[in-house]
């Protein structure tokens, strides 16, 4: 049974993806701040932005050849202007979204290399190409994820590991629960497909990227809804 590690598995898109994987027979190892909660898959508690915490949670998987994929879905956002965002919030967003993604890749890549192939899927946002006002810090962290993923894809290519990024627009999860409706509608109206995506739309892309048929797709950012 193939193992997929999903960060941010306790809620939002990460939880939807983890549940979908579990339902399809994958062994899912979720990573979230707390291992408490009622999930049908294994959850390990870790702070994705803390190297020691992540190493403690996932270190035993370095030589586990059942590990097939890593999905970095952990993320936080803060709708705020740059000049009114507290410095500690800036650090927290960059650390969780960008540093957390890099640390997880560092930890899981050896297992995928030892296996001889696998998949890494990171998450960005349509906000990167759309440059949405009030999300500069969040967008900066995700632009970093895109650049990191594209470059890391080159390093992993000789080992049969693809690295791709999925960039959704606003999806009804906890991440945007405090965002006013008109703001969401304004972003959706700038998508090529002017429909608010569902978690299942994201899952469909995850499913494609996990499939053997995606072996020639790497270093790409896939914009859900188009941008």
């Amino acid at each position, binding site marked *: 049974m193939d193992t997929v590690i999903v960060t941010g598995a306790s809620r939002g898109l990460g939880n939807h993806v983890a549940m979908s994987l579990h339902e399809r027979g994958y062994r899912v190892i979720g990573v979230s701040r707390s291992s408490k909660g009622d999930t049908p898959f294994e959850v390990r508690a870790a702070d994705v932005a803390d190297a020691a915490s992540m190493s403690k949670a996932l270190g035993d998987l370095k030589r586990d050849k059942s590990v097939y994929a890593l999905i970095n879905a952990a993320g936080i956002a803060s709708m705020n202007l740059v000049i009114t965002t507290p410095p500690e919030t800036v650090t927290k967003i960059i650390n969780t979204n960008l540093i957390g993604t890099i640390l997880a890749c560092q930890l899981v890549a050896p297992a995928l*290399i030892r296996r001889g192939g696998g998949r890494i899927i990171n998450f960005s946002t349509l906000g990167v190409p759309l440059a949405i006002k009030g999300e500069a810090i969040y967008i900066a962290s995700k632009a970093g994820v895109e650049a990191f993923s594209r470059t890391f894809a080159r390093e992993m290519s000789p080992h049969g590991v693809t690295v791709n990024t999925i960039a959704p627009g606003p999806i009804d999860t906890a991440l945007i629960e405090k965002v006013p409706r008109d703001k969401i509608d304004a972003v959706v109206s700038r998508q090529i497909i002017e429909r608010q995506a569902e978690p299942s739309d994201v899952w469909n892309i995850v499913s494609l990227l996990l499939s053997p048929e995606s072996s020639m797709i790497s270093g790409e950012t896939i914009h859900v809804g188009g941008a």
Partner: protein
Amino acid sequence: MPVGKEEVEKFIVDEVSMLIGDASSQISTATPLIGANRAVDSADLVVLLLAVEDYARDNLGFQWDWTSDSAMSEARSVLRSIGSLAEHLVNQQAR
């Protein structure tokens, strides 16, 4: 009983020879692992690091951490040659 430097060097030489697939090549302790004259490309270097990590755990008795700010420095990296890597591993073993 600690593993000697020559034995560690032999392990790395054999691994590098296997990775480049040329048993007749002149791999020695002076062979660079990074830099312009390196014997292995970056992909093979990653595979070598994983093999050395396993070797350190199984034979030298410690968990090797290969991360270093100077990893790609031809002047300072422990990867600048097979000999320097072996020496580093033996020193780590002694700690």
